[in-house]
């Protein structure tokens, strides 16, 4: 899983003002159509390499979970790999591997759930058949639920309970959204909620949300729209759509928290550290692109203003790769989060005050063209890297098709970011860093024998660890 607080501003294109070629945001053809059952299909042919990515976005995430059932969307995602009508328990990965598939995984966020794999283009039919089999006839058993419940509890221990600062984004989520709001709770759920999960919860969840008309199927690589249409008709065409409940009601949130709050947590962490949350614009809403650029100018990279001010100039903070990140949440107001660690001998309140001061300096004085150019170059190069693999290209198309009903809107992302000017960044800073729009979460090291508290994540994946080797030597 990506640590969302530090990586989510990667959506951008083009090049710096001076150097940029007249690049559009997306250089491949995109074809879109729907089946009669409502399944939306996006095809992006690229014959360069004989491989093809298959990606399915289901428009369901932890935001759909009722109270007491947090973590169920993610636990359900695990069950999707445990067998279906024609696929035995434990066979799903093996079927894909046997045709040469890899980069096989799924992730669940507050907004959505995505499933993906890349296969040799000759095996496209197999990947589509597998996705159709689990969309149409998933096998849900008590045995797989019990096993995957344990796996998910281990996932939570590994990512959140057993690591220092592991709960920071769960705590900031709870502080940043009111009780009962779809973004108030984290994606992983609590141990007690996971323990209480019944098989009937998941059959109901499946019936409600895993319907063809609640999904977008994206295929990118060595194929054609004609081939995908024929295969999609064969494998998905007979699946029936099912009704689903309205998403939970959520009151519209004001543009600011309306308060400045500071919470201190005493835990066995190695160093003091502070995390921040600021309410920000919903993804693609007015101001959202400016929020993304603002977080890069101020808080990402060696040349960012927060690094230069807090680390090099004032020697208050430790060097980090990022101090701010925009979450780009798509269904309700989003947030920008921040973090900083004091150098030895610096007190947390002094660092917190300096952090806010640097943020406020943008609202007061704006940013320079040089700072904007650095951010634009980074965002443009990020976008090139994002589109470099068929897998992540498919995910971007599925995202835009799900959110805007038009996958081709993906081409707007980079131009939108590159068009953000200094005035808009300054306006964004005034809104985001307003004095009544900040939550501070300070971690203070405890004695060694203090009890660690519980945890949870925001985007969770099925099997990242199983596929990654350890990196220490």
């Amino acid at each position, binding site marked *: 899983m990506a640590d969302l607080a530090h990586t989510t501003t990667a959506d951008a294109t083009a090049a710096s003002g001076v150097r940029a070629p007249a690049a559009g945001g997306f250089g491949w053809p995109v074809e879109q159509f729907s089946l009669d059952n409502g399944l939306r299909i996006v095809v992006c042919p690229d014959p360069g390499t004989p491989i093809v990515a298959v990606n399915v976005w289901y428009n369901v995430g932890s935001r759909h979970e009722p109270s007491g059932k947090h973590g169920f969307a993610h636990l359900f995602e695990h069950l999707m790999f445990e067998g279906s009508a024609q696929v035995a328990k434990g066979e799903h990965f093996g079927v894909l591997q046997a*045709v040469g598939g890899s980069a096989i995984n799924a992730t669940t966020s507050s907004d959505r759930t995505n499933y993906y794999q890349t296969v040799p283009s*000759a095996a496209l039919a197999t990947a589509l058949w597998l996705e159709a089999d689990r969309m*149409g006839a998933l096998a849900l058993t008590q045995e797989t639920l019990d096993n995957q419940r344990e796996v998910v509890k281990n996932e939570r221990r*590994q990512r959140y*309970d057993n690591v220092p600062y592991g709960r920071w984004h769960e705590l900031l989520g709870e502080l940043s959204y009111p009780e009962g709001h779809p973004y108030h709770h984290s994606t992983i759920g609590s141990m007690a909620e996971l323990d209480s999960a019944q098989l009937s919860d998941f059959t109901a969840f499946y019936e409600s949300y895993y319907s063809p008309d609640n999904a977008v199927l994206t295929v990118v690589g060595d194929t054609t729209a004609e081939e995908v249409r024929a295969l999609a008709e064969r494998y998905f065409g*007979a699946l029936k759509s099912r009704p689903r409940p309205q998403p939970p009601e959520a009151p519209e949130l004001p543009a600011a928290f309306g308060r400045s709050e500071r919470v201190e947590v005493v835990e066995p962490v190695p160093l003091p550290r502070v995390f921040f949350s600021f309410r920000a614009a919903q993804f693609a809403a007015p101001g959202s692109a400016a929020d993304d650029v603002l977080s890069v100018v101020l808080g990402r990279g*060696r040349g960012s203003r927060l690094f230069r001010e807090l680390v090099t100039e004032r020697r208050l903070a430790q060097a980090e790769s990022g101090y701010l990140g925009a979450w780009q949440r798509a269904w309700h107001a989003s947030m920008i989060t921040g973090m900083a660690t004091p150098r030895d001998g610096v007190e947390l309140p002094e660092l917190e005050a300096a952090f806010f001061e640097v943020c406020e300096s943008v609202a007061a004085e704006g940013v320079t063209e*040089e700072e904007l150019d650095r951010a634009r170059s980074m965002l443009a190069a990020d976008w*090139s890297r994002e589109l470099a693999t068929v897998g992540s290209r498919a995910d971007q198309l599925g995202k835009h098709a799900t959110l805007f009903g038009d996958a081709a809107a993906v081409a707007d992302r980079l131009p939108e970011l590159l068009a953000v000017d200094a005035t808009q960044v300054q306006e964004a800073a005034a809104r985001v860093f307003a004095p009544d729009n900040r939550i501070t979460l300070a971690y203070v090291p405890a004695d060694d024998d203090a009890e660690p508290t519980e945890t949870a994540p925001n985007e969770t994946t099925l099997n990242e660890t199983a596929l990654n080797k350890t990196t220490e030597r």
Partner: protein
Amino acid sequence: MSETLLAPRPEFVSPRAYAFPEVRTFNVGAGRILAAHLPGQPIAWISALLDGGALREPEGLDGLARATAGLLDEGTLKHSADEFGTAVESLGGSWSVDTGWETVRLSLDLPVREAAAGAELLAEALRTPAFTDTDVERYLSDLVAAKRESFARPGPRAQAAMRGALYGEEVRYGRLAGGDPESVAALDAEAVRAFHATWLRHAGTLLIAGDLDRLDVEALGRAVFADFPASDAAALPDPTPKAAPKRLAVADRPGAVQSTLRIGHPTPTRSKVADHGIDVVALRIGSTVLGGSFTSRLNHELREVKGYTYGAHAGFDFGRPLGLFTFSAEVRTDATAEAVRDVLRVIDEFIAEGVTVAELDKTRAYLAGATPIGLQTAGAVGSRLVEMVRHGLPEDYVTTEHARLLEVTLDEVDTAVRAALRPADLVVAVEGDESVVGADLEALGL
């Protein structure tokens, strides 16, 4: 949800051949260039590989190679630290350093149209770092704090315990390449300047992956290496593993809700495996079956059957100067000893029974498919160039190994596994709550 709505499973498809991108080689001064041609690729990857890794560090200064490499972009004679970082990022560049036991590598991933400007910055960092007292003091104090945090997370201490058990903490190879919080606290500006002067002012190999029609490869090489002399350092003797290591090492982590397991033994390095009767491609299939993918025997047993872990992995790292077989997982504290017992049992059974025909077919297809899927980016292609240089492999080794993958037999896989895996030599390192797991681990009688 009627099954009659579902279409039957498609026909099986056979793995296909694969050809690695064309590699061009050049000599520039005392340096060498290896460049892989990726037509149309908008991102280029440039990496300077030099002699001078952790094994070259003076006694008592573990982590100096990494610190020196990390300081190269923290200010030069021409640019302040902030200016340099801004310059790299204004090209859309992503700067990274990698220090191994024998080498230091500086890499830049950036839009191909900026490659010449990027190479100038790479050269500037390598040739004229300022290493001012202020910048070095700032960087090193942050490094100490970062190490403290890293060692508070599960992993590094388990890895250190395994290295210590295998080689002895008194030798450099028995400790972590990047050092620990205490060793990096002993570094200073003088040591950094001396390490740079001794090791990094030499020509090495410049690795490039990108659209060579848009890159002046020899100019990039001249910019980086120019008049640097060749490295004339004598080769180091290979480290010697302990003859009879203690087989259990525990790093205490009070209150841990999971135990971090590292179970391993040394192996020959990549260039010497053939001398030990090991076919590297056959072994890759075998180790993937054992612990290299989601469907591996170890992940299946520990995650899907027992529910002990979120994921388990095992594989061979044919690094230099020695390789290492390692199993790694984080397991529920109350299942720690049982998990270790299961890992050792699964490995024993794997060696005794060998791989099945179904496992061979599936894994062959999986690895064959993974070659092109895993080589879509300039950086991924570049990592294969690194292997070429470090192990003296031919420029077409990815292509020939892929072809070999399609023809390896079951017997060849079993033979390679039995030649490479030595269960009696496995050392078990556990980072966990010793008061809870210690007695049960001792009772395993390793």
